[in-house]
């Protein structure tokens, strides 16, 4: 199968994944958005590991988790990561975990005005532009 359409590929992007107790996902997403993230995806999961080691105290750790995934540019990565860490209170034992996965490439819907901006800058600078950076502006 072959296609003739032009693809707009994002490079220099990372995926931040954060696991928090159920109900905390929105708090983390709000913090990420405040730091410039464009969107987020959440799905549910069940945590294991810490609870088993806590014995009776395991009731204090919610087994049901929310897994938050946010795609950000490399430029935004550290700031969004920090804000999510703080909002999720991830320095508290048993609250969850957050990690970054470097992405090889990504693609998303890019609004026409952003595409236009990219084209204008490309014409001016004659250089390859990082689309993810333009999107995060």
């Amino acid at each position, binding site marked *: *199968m072959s*296609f003739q*359409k032009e*693809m*707009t590929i994002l490079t220099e*992007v990372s*995926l931040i994944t954060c696991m928090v107790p159920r109900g905390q996902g929105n708090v983390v*997403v709000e913090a990420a*958005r405040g730091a410039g*993230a*464009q*969107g*987020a*995806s*959440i*799905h549910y999961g069940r945590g294991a590991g810490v609870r088993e080691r806590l014995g009776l105290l395991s009731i204090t750790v919610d087994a049901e988790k929310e897994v938050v995934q946010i*795609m950000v540019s490399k430029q935004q990565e550290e700031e969004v990561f920090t804000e999510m860490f703080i909002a999720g209170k991830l320095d508290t034992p048993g609250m969850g975990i957050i990690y970054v*996965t*470097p*992405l*090889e*490439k*990504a*693609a*998303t*819907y*890019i*609004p026409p005005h952003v595409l236009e901006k990219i084209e204008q800058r490309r014409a001016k600078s004659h250089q390859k532009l990082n689309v993810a950076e333009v999107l995060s502006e």
Partner: protein
Amino acid sequence: MLNQDHCRPAKLIVCILGRGAAQSIVEQLFDENILLTETLVIRNQNALVAEEAWQEMDMLKVIVEPQFADHVFELIYNLSAIELEEGHYMYQHNVPWVTHFELPKLPKEGVPIKAIESGKVEVEGMTLEQLQTLRIRSKKG
């Protein structure tokens, strides 16, 4: 210890797309050297659409051999119309090791339950060892 016969590098392609759209894409990927697919239902929020709008969407995960990854990425990109739908996105990254995932070889007409339960009845095209494996799996299940 696992060696390269058991494990190999791969690429993971993840696509966030409209609710119910993942199934038809999986069907069209049937002949594309896919190692594994998985579909989740997620909720997705996108700043470009509306501030507080959460949408129920599909998350399609595809594990593919590295040499086919770019082709599969492009295929999913086009099939899912990523560039046309707000809130849709996809990405690809390396997976250092994946194991082989093979289904047991079963006859087209299926295996009689009696054969699995007893582990003795001969089934055409299956060795006794394969039958025993199925028997262990059915007990675990």
